[in-house]
């Protein structure tokens, strides 16, 4: 492996996270997100911000908004459900990975090591939330003359590269109604802790025991999992 190639690989943030210091994160923190659906208008700004920030290839989304209509005229309403990786405390994807390329940091963020993943897709089958996909796009910050393609599993990373440097995730920053709130659950004064403790919250497929760290306020539980569609 030439020196230029090594330098290029070290610049990319995916491989960077395979280094030991990044595999741990800050041990006293526990990152979580609260999505207040009373404020969500379903503008899809988060989906677009995520795509731009993380260079997610076509056809795939790390973050998207699910829209479900409930009821019949005149009693009908559209429900929005912004979706992203739930950053479970007991992640089935990490258990399924045969090469430990999916790993959980101590601050609660689950990441994929693009340099180690061999693309067996076991984690995609294991994830009960459809949060994972195969990323066939190039590495971030790629050299246009020597493009290397990831061809590995990929998922929402809570924008770990931004969070580590003190910035908010791209979807939180772009949310125009501030429906998405991001912060440290272990800090009792953070906005996230206050919201979780003061309001009734819902989790997607809580019965599976994965202990998700994305909390929803005012979500309709019947549309959170699989939609049992009925044509009118």
């Amino acid at each position: 492996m030439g020196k230029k190639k090594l330098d290029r690989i070290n610049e990319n943030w995916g491989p960077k996270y395979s280094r030991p210091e990044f595999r741990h994160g800050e041990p006293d923190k526990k990152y979580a997100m609260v999505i207040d659906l009373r404020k969500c208008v379903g503008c899809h700004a988060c989906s677009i911000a995520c795509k731009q920030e993380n260079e997610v290839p076509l056809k795939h989304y790390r973050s998207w908004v699910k829209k479900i209509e409930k009821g019949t005229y005149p009693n009908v309403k559209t429900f929005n459900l912004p979706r992203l990786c739930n950053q479970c405390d007991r992640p089935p994807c990490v258990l399924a990975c045969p090469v430990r390329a999916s790993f959980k940091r101590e601050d609660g963020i689950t990441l994929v090591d693009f340099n180690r993943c061999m693309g067996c897709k076991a984690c995609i089958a294991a994830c009960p939330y459809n949060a994972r996909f195969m990323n066939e796009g190039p590495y971030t910050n790629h050299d246009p003359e020597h493009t290397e393609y990831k061809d590995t599993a990929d998922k929402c990373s809570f924008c770990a590269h931004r969070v580590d440097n003190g910035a908010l995730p791209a979807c939180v920053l772009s949310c125009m109604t501030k429906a998405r709130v991001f912060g440290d659950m272990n800090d009792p004064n953070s906005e996230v802790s206050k919201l979780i403790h003061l309001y009734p919250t819902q989790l997607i497929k809580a019965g599976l025991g994965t202990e998700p760290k994305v909390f929803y306020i005012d979500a309709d539980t019947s549309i959170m999992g699989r939609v049992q569609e009925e044509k009118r």
Partner: protein
Amino acid sequence: MVFQEVYNVQHGLIWGLLITSFPFFTGLSAGSFTLSTLAYVFDKKEYKVISKNAVLMAIVLLLMANMTLLADTTQPTRIYNTFLYPNIASMFSWATFIISAYLLCSLIYAYYIFTGNDKFAKIMGIICIPVALGVHADTGFVFGLNKGMVLWHTALMPVLFLVSALTSGIALLIVVVVIKEKFFPDEKKVDPEIIYSIGNLLIFFLVLEFFLDIVDITTMLYSAAEEYEAIMLWLSGPLSFSFIWIQIVIGGIIPLLILSHPKTGRTYFGQGLAAALVVIGTFAMRFNVIVGGQMIPKSEAGLVPYTHEIGYIGYTLIEEIMLLSGIILFGIVAYILALKYTPKIVTLVDGIIGKNANDSSTEVPFELEE
């Protein structure tokens, strides 16, 4: 309540025909390996004639299974990572170690069979049988431990895979032996009674598989709403033709009738036809389980269609079929070559190890040893 999906991201299938044929090949391998140990481990001397065919078939099929896995991973050059970073919780990780162990000890076992060393063959066989069955139980766990997949997540999955593995392995061996008897009549004859008694074994495993299928379906029908909908995919959904007609009728009922009828069950043609139908039915079973399980969406409405456009299978359908036929062709050629050259290879290995090759019976390994 009336729900309608206005917008959602479609998540397609990830595993297609290649992964469907992985448990198919390992199942055939485990089944034929178990059959080859009948003579040496369980002292059923009359099966000794077919044990050489069976063990070579098991090794070749295992190689084919590994090729399907390699072809399906998107970064096959990183496969060594499974040995560098093993994950004790991952069934895929276990699979690499069990498959490697199985390949090694089946090679040693084959060596002892071909050198006529019955005592060591018996010891190796006793070590190998749990490993061979473990390969397949592990494959069942790979699918059965995904709690997000409603159709897969059942404790019956490893047992179901194991039983269908034995069924299909026995069936494929019957097909191969019958073809050999029909088209290469000048070679050593296998006593028809042996084939018929293997056919009786096939009947037993077919009935057992039926029983497990019925248990699985009935439990699903009486379970929660999601499980009920998942099983209706087999009974009345898009997979109902593949399930009811190919898996149950063609792969189960018709072979059972052919095998158990005294007129058709006692002929080479009847045995071969029934066994071939069982192999087809087992492939349909793998398809129904693996592709069917992914057709139940995790967050969307309706069913995920079996297409190669949405989501990520990695290959188009044509590419998958071409890869698969290449692998099958490799298997056929490798099996024919193995039948021809294994005695020579064994004497070569004997020479390397330093044994005296002259006094052993390796020169004519295909003779009826009675």
